[in-house]
């Protein structure tokens, strides 16, 4: 058994393995697979049941368990949900593991796991992955105004 705290480097090595066997497009297919197999039964079901509020339920649990450094805002009136990731524990951990090389597009998985799935449930998104080298990112989901 590996500890669940060792998953992030295992994940990073998985992306490297798949890319080595095929190409980056194959890694993206893996992310799409995980979006369907893992994220949809969890986040997707919550959003199906509770609307955009389901995002609050999903990420407040996950990010607390991952000991992330974050600010999450859910605006019920505006139907907006935003995560400001001040320091992502996953990317932060990989940055600290100087003895191993992490996957070059590690943060790419977030863009493929969540936004395309939530679009199917009617949510639009705005994402900022420009500072992932510092383990920072922002993502906002919202119900488009009619």
């Amino acid at each position, binding site marked *: *058994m*590996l*500890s*669940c*705290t*060792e*998953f*992030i*480097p*295992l*994940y990073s*090595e*998985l992306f*490297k*393995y*798949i890319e080595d*066997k095929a190409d980056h497009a194959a890694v993206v297919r*893996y992310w799409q*697979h*995980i979006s369907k*197999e*893992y994220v949809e039964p969890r986040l997707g079901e919550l959003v199906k049941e509770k609307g955009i509020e389901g995002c*609050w339920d999903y990420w*407040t649990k*996950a*990010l*607390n*368990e*991952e*000991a*992330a*450094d*974050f*600010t*999450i*805002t*859910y*605006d*019920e*009136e505006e139907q907006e949900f935003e995560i400001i990731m001040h*320091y992502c*524990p996953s990317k932060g951990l990989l940055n600290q*593991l100087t*003895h*191993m*090389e992490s996957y070059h597009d590690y943060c790419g998985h977030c863009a493929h796991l969540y936004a395309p799935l939530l679009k199917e449930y009617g949510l639009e998104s705005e994402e900022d992955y420009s500072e992932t080298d510092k383990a920072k990112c922002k993502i906002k989901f919202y119900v488009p105004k009619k």
Partner: protein
Amino acid sequence: MAKRVMDRRAADNKYLHRDFHVSGDLGIQYVGERYGDNGVKEYLRRFTTSYYSPLIADIKERGLAALKEHIESIYEIEEASEVLKTTIKDDELLVEVSRCPAIAYMKSIGHTPSKWYIEETRTVNETIADNADLGFELIHYDIETGKAAYRFFRRCF
């Protein structure tokens, strides 16, 4: 209308996201289904050789005590020290696990571990041993509960 804000620092919580056991197993399963049994072994060998290189160096320097401490730390993190028994005797480290906390968690949320999940024990430890110039034997492993016994030993060629 309500506006909710949650603001947390890393130090506010313990890092223990047990769903990562499921995510790890899904990754292994994906490799197994596309690249076969040897693909799973190759993937986990690469991971182990890379990620555990500091541990392997420590084992080479301090011997089986370093490996024993590492295994104990895994079960402490998982809050399951009670399922683990480790014994060092005559250049051999015997590890006995009465049940796997990861398998118990995965099953508790309805995820049945893939047939390749055993490799997180077999291939990972085999690779640590091989890289640290030790022998490894998986004595038994129950795929239903993860109850297992395995040993590391000084190997001779």
